[in-house]
């Protein structure tokens, strides 16, 4: 199955039968990987395919449950990232890890500064930094410049220099170019190619297919925690690659969708040319009452920011938001939930954004709707209790009374509390940010039913999920985001896993390409 290896390129790192489970979820399942010196190896896969777990295992961030790893023929196991560094595996993560207020040299040697009499040897530090910068092709950066004064692309070079100063034999780049412009990317690529010629092994994780095509020597596709194929770069078409990435097991049952949501109804929520800070680019969308709109795409393409921007959390959003066809200025969650707009956001992380864990189920449930059960700021306890009883019954929240801390509930029931607390306000527009993450299958099923019931009761719903099955099963339309912009809109039968993955990677699937060809 593995392609032939030219004799002059030696096998540097090998992973065999590595598995890792988080609770009941299998993140990696008998994964195999071979990394060769002097090659750039790309890793591909959709959300949850096991890419990030693979990197974390290699970089010593998490310990695998089983399997063995060998480095240059010797078996290794890493208890910490420091041990992985020592063995020669260094990782550059997506988010820049530099400290803005320290100098470039300080940053480069930060984990292990050279010392003299117990003090940092500044001369030696500067020398190390200069060498590393030169090797990263960025000798023009002054080692004593502050990182915060450098433009983003230069910082990325410092990041690479920092990794090189640790003398890696394998360099892992996790979405390392996602913050860069095309011109900066080509500079980084030149450096990476030179490092390859110096005999380094590079592991490159990216969702940009054209980057992989330009850079990689070989590619491995992951799916459901397994490596499903390894092939020589360029030997497979984009369409074949998508084919390899497809194939998640369907495990959920979804309520039936209505026969096309009435398209003649006016939109409840619209936004035009929404942009924010380079993370959202000219997003326009509209949602009608009774419609469930999905947000698709790979993780971190601006979906979360879009929901936060609509809900008034982000500052400096440009563009226009219309509710019922009238411009609405939503400057805070308080404005978003107000009468006339009636928006609700089920946030991403229920433990830090949705709930006050030590407070009681009662206090959490009624917190967003307190203004509706109080007069003059004094809470009407009987009215509060009525609403709470209604919600506990409606969502079948399993709790030993409403006066125990909400933190004592199971994850699924906590999520129900977050949703119930917003349903109390009877919102007309409901934004959901990956609401089924980390909850049990039974509760997921209940949430899908609830979502459809709410839509049938004329709510307009925007639903972001990292699980493509949910988008296919729940949504009337799906907007696929890529790099902060909407790249495709899929409706009805077009919403297939193939179409979702192809548009998430910003490539056309083969069938459509043929259709376009036939049309022309």
């Amino acid at each position, binding site marked *: 199955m593995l392609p032939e290896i030219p004799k002059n390129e030696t096998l540097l790192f090998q992973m065999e039968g590595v598995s890792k489970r988080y609770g009941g979820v299998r993140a990696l399942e008998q994964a195999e990987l071979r990394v060769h010196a002097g090659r750039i190896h790309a890793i591909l896969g959709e959300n949850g395919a096991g890419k990030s777990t693979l990197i974390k295992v290699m970089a010593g961030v998490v310990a695998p449950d089983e399997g063995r790893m060998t480095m240059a023929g010797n078996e290794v196991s890493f208890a910490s990232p420091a041990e992985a560094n020592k063995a020669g595996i260094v990782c550059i993560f997506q988010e820049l890890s530099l400290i803005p207020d320290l100098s470039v040299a300080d940053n480069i040697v930060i984990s292990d500064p050279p010392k003299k009499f117990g003090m940092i040897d500044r001369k030696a530090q500067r020398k190390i930094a200069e060498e590393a910068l030169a090797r990263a092709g960025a000798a023009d950066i002054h080692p004593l410049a502050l990182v915060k004064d450098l433009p983003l692309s230069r910082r990325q070079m410092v990041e690479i220099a920092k990794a090189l100063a640790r003398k890696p034999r394998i360099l892992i780049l996790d979405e390392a170019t996602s913050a860069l412009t095309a011109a900066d990317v080509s500079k980084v690529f030149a450096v990476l190619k030179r490092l390859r010629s110096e005999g380094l092994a590079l592991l490159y994780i990216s969702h940009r297919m054209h980057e992989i095509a330009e850079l990689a020597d070989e590619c491995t596709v992951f799916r459901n925690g397994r490596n499903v194929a390894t092939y020589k770069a360029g030997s497979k078409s984009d369409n074949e690659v998508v084919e390899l990435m497809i194939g998640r097991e369907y495990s959920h049952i979804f309520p039936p969708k209505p026969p096309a949501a009435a398209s003649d109804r006016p939109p409840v929520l619209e936004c035009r040319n929404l942009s924010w800070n380079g993370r959202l680019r000219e997003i326009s969308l509209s949602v009608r009452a009774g419609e469930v709109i999905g947000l698709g795409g790979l993780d971190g393409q601006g979906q979360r920011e879009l929901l936060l921007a609509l809900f008034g959390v982000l500052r400096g959003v440009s563009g226009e938001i219309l509710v019922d066809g009238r411009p609405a200025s939503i400057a805070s969650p308080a404005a978003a939930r107000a009468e006339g707009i009636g928006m609700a956001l089920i946030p991403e992380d229920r433990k830090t954004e*949705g709930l006050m864990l030590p407070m009681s189920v009662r206090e959490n449930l009624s917190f967003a709707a*307190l203004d509706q059960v109080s007069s003059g700021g004094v809470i009407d306890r009987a009215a509060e209790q009525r609403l709470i009883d209604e919600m506990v019954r409606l969502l079948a929240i399993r709790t030993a009374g409403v006066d125990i801390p909400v933190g004592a509930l199971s994850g699924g029931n906590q999520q129900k509390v977050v949703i119930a607390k917003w349903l109390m306000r009877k919102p007309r527009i409901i934004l959901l940010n990956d609401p089924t993450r980390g909850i049990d299958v039974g509760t997921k099923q209940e949430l899908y039913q609830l979502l459809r019931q709410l839509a049938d009761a004329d709510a307009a719903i925007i639903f972001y999920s990292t699980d493509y099955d949910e988008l296919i099963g729940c949504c009337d339309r799906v907007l696929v985001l890529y790099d902060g912009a909407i790249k495709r809109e899929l409706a009805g039968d077009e919403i297939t896993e193939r179409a979702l993955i192809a548009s998430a990677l910003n490539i056309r699937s083969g069938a459509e390409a043929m259709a376009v060809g036939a049309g022309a």
Partner: protein
Amino acid sequence: MSDTTTARIAGRMPGFLRRADPAVATAFACIILLLVFGSLYSTSFLSPEYLLQQLKVASFLGVIASGMMLVILLGQIDLSVPWVVAVGAMMACAAAAHGTAGMVLAIPFGIACGVLIGLVNGIGVAYLRIPSMIITLATNAVAQGLMVVHTGGFSPQDSASAAMRWLATGFLLPGVPNAVVVWAIVGAAMVFVLTRTTFGRAVYAIGNRERAAYLSGVDTRRIVMIAFAVSGGLSAFGGVLLAGYASKAAQAMGDAYLLPAIAAVVLGGTSILGGRGSYLGTVAGVILITLLQSILSVMQMPEAGRQVIYGVVIIGMLLLYGRAPASR
């Protein structure tokens, strides 16, 4: 289900009892222990006159600690207490020197000055995102400077108004000092605000998880600002009462109230990280601190020794309760 039964019983209990946690019980146990210990030293420690006198002295601290508690529940701190107390006292006395109108407006004017300083603190913390420890320390210094300018650095000559004296030392109900009644009213209002109003819920919510409270559509900045303003007002009110008690204001009269106020709140089981605590606990903490002060002075413990004991008590309570995880 026994679980649901207990929950139902708990649901019928008043909120301040439901919130009570072991720290409150411990504080009350300590009060009894102190009294027993004191009675061994001298039997007059158990006489009604002594206890009533202690309650009266505790009232001043009680009013000040009420405001401090509100701010600590948010996970913040108010270090401007010492000179806001002095501002309240000095401004009320200064107003009282201006004829009849001044006499009438002395108390509200003193409190208003405290509210103003509290507002500055609140705006700094909520809107300008300055750490409360820094801004309140700074406003304390500014208040001190202004008062030194106002008095010329000497003991102020203005006397407290009759109303102030009556409030602090008079007897409306036979046998119960007015100061105690005032504290009881402030305390009842605090319990009501904390347990029955949307503002109180929001204070606990912000102390637990400000982001969750904000994303629920609560104007968290307004709540924080109001809490600091209330704290300033209550500190100044404490100063007004103290001035009435002593008939006049004095330089540095509030210095002895900062640490005891924080200690009382923390001793009463309010988490220094915010989000958890009951007013009943603060009541216990205030009485405990007052008794401790009294017994130490009766035993002729020098001031230096008393300071060491306060500090050790606060550190001890923080170790016991402050580090406990927020979710019980």
